[in-house]
């Protein structure tokens, strides 16, 4: 257990009595909450504590936050707390989820409830590809054996559908399942798809400002941050995009993810671009993995071409582009596809967009852009031809027919994972499966070569299958 996330084992708490499945308190099972998050009056709560359905634990002990596991001194602050009258310690790491304060307790709700056993929960009628089928079987067996499994599926493999058989199996057994993802957009996108595939199952989507607040469902789709509020709750935890921000470099989120799973549980990780750490564990056979090297439409991944443009940075610094890139763009515009241009910084994205706007219909977008969603939509609706973006569009978004250019691909923001993800934006549709991907650079970097090699390797694997 917890092989993948090399984190200290989360604290254990005394054995609690299972909340009966007909109890109204069942909806709080597996939660770890602050007092003001609990929708019960003091009397009710005290009774639950007496019956050992609820365990009360100190919120901050020996410089560690009981909710998020933060233990570095800069993650704690003090404030003059008018409630306790002291200079009170609180956790700054998880403060955006509501403040955890040393003078208040945390409450753990017993998790050992039986959920409904569904006979035939899945009404999805599509077919899985051979690759998806293979992964689906591995997922089922890891749920049966309560093991870890890493699913390494290329961009566009159709990873949601290949989860369906495993979810179906778990629902038949009356297990509780959580699909967690680092990004809110993904929760919003997955929820309706799962609701239509599992129409009779209690499914909730939980994220920072979701309408749903309770998070009591048998099948929960949540951001990884929401896992701070669960403990030993799920029989199956599926974490999507384990290599994505903010999950991949946040040990506190990993800690919370492993605590949210029951002691005996299946943990399934999905990624298109595992980090070095995970790859090493796969090689050493410390982590079982299954590959899905081909896309659902069966065509190979577009392999990026590397183009040397020595004057790139000096032109960029003047808000301009080398003429060779401009002519690539003008040639690209003669074709039918739209163009997705990746830039290394917000400034350079804006500069490039304003330069190109003299000749093309173009917009730029970045993470803090208030019009981000609108701009992405207008690109999707073919209202603009070129979208210049920072790395925020490296994953998740799918446009049916684009070519992808990366300007200054040697910049440090473009690591191997980012470049593989970016290349994965091209050729997504079965109607147009081969978009062009070009990395413009001032000198090859390891990241570029590794990304190229990784993509070629996957294509080779796909061929053999």
């Amino acid at each position, binding site marked *: 257990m917890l092989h993948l996330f090399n984190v200290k084992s989360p604290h254990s708490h005394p054995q609690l009595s299972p909340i009966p499945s007909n109890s109204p308190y069942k909806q709080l099972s597996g939660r770890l909450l602050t007092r003001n998050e609990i929708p019960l009056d003091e009397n009710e709560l005290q009774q639950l504590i007496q019956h050992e359905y609820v365990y009360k634990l100190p919120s901050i002990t020996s410089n560690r936050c009981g909710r998020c596991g933060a233990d570095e001194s800069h993650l704690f602050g003090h404030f003059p707390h008018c409630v306790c009258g002291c200079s009170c310690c*609180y956790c700054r790491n998880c*403060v*955006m989820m509501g403040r955890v304060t040393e003078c208040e307790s945390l409450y753990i709700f017993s998790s050992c409830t039986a959920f409904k056993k569904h006979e035939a929960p899945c009404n999805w009628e599509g077919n899985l590809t051979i690759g998806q089928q293979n992964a689906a079987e591995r997922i089922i067996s890891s749920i049966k054996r309560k093991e870890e499994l890493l699913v390494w599926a290329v961009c566009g493999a159709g990873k949601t559908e290949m989860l369906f058989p495993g979810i179906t199996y778990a629902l038949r057994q009356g297990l509780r399942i959580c699909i967690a993802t680092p990004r809110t957009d993904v929760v919003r996108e997955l929820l309706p798809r799962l609701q239509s595939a599992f129409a009779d199952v209690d499914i909730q989507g939980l994220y920072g400002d979701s309408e749903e607040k309770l998070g009591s469902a048998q099948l929960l789709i949540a951001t990884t941050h929401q896992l701070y509020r669960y403990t030993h709750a799920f029989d199956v935890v599926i974490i999507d995009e384990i290599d994505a921000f903010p999950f991949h470099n946040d040990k506190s989120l990993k800690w919370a993810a492993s605590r949210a799973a029951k002691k005996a549980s299946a943990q399934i990780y999905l990624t298109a671009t595992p980090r070095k750490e995970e790859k090493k564990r796969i090689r050493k056979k410390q982590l079982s993995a299954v590959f899905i090297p081909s896309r659902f439409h069966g065509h190979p991944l577009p392999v990026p071409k590397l183009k040397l443009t020595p004057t790139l940075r000096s032109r960029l610094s003047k808000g301009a582009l080398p003429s060779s890139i401009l002519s690539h763009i003008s040639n690209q515009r003669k074709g039918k596809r739209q163009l997705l241009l990746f830039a290394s910084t917000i400034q350079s994205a804006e500069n490039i967009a304003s330069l190109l706007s003299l000749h093309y219909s173009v917009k730029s977008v970045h993470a803090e852009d208030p019009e981000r969603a609108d701009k992405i939509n207008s690109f999707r609706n073919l209202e603009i031809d070129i979208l210049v973006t920072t790395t925020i569009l490296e994953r998740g978004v799918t446009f049916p027919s684009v070519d992808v250019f990366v300007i200054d691909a040697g910049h440090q923001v473009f690591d191997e994972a980012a470049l593989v993800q970016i290349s994965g934006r091209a050729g997504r549709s079965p109607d147009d499966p081969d978009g062009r991907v070009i990395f413009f650079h001032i000198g090859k970097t390891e990241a570029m070569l590794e990304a190229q090699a990784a993509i070629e390797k996957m294509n080779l694997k796909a061929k053999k299958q």
Partner: protein
Amino acid sequence: MRCIICFSPVLPSVDWTTFLTLQKPVKVCLQCSDKLSGIEEPGCPQCGRADGAEVCYDCERWERSEYAGVLTKNVAVFSYNEFAKELVARWKYRGDFTLIEAFTEAAQKKYKNHFHSMEADLAAIPLSKERLWERGFNQSEALITQLGASPLSFFKRKGSEKQSKKGRMERIGGENPFELIGKPERPVILVDDIYTTGMTVRHLGRLLCEAGCPEVYSFTLFR
């Protein structure tokens, strides 16, 4: 050192000038301090709004209303941009008290520039009891403490506060939610986190003026 805002490591620049002048430790990293935009002067001489040196439209309207003359001027430290909104939400509503340290140095400087030689009392804006218990601290008192002064309580809240839920016009027409409980003898500087419409400080300013306060100023972190 870690950046107070984003926790990324802030490397102390060790060269001879910093070594000799014994600079204070840097609390905010470059990326974060770039996003916090200090209010350029001269702005509106009355409220500190940063887009022009003339009295702005809002203030002109105030001076034509029944609140004319109750507030001599507002001084603000930063403009209330998107980043500032995020920080205020995290500081005040989520309760990340420590963030105040990111503003302290600039606030002290600005305060000194404008009120240096003034003999004045610093007054905190009261919160309702429920609100105070929810947040755990009063942001306006916290600010006054950071300025090195001790907050005086001149006011009390009458009912509950639901100000932010109402529109601007409603608020301007609204009844004064405060009452005076102290006696102002010298000029008073009202200290708050944000100056948005200016209603709150004028409600309080009017009470002070009616009680004979010689002059009322306000000092806010954001405008």
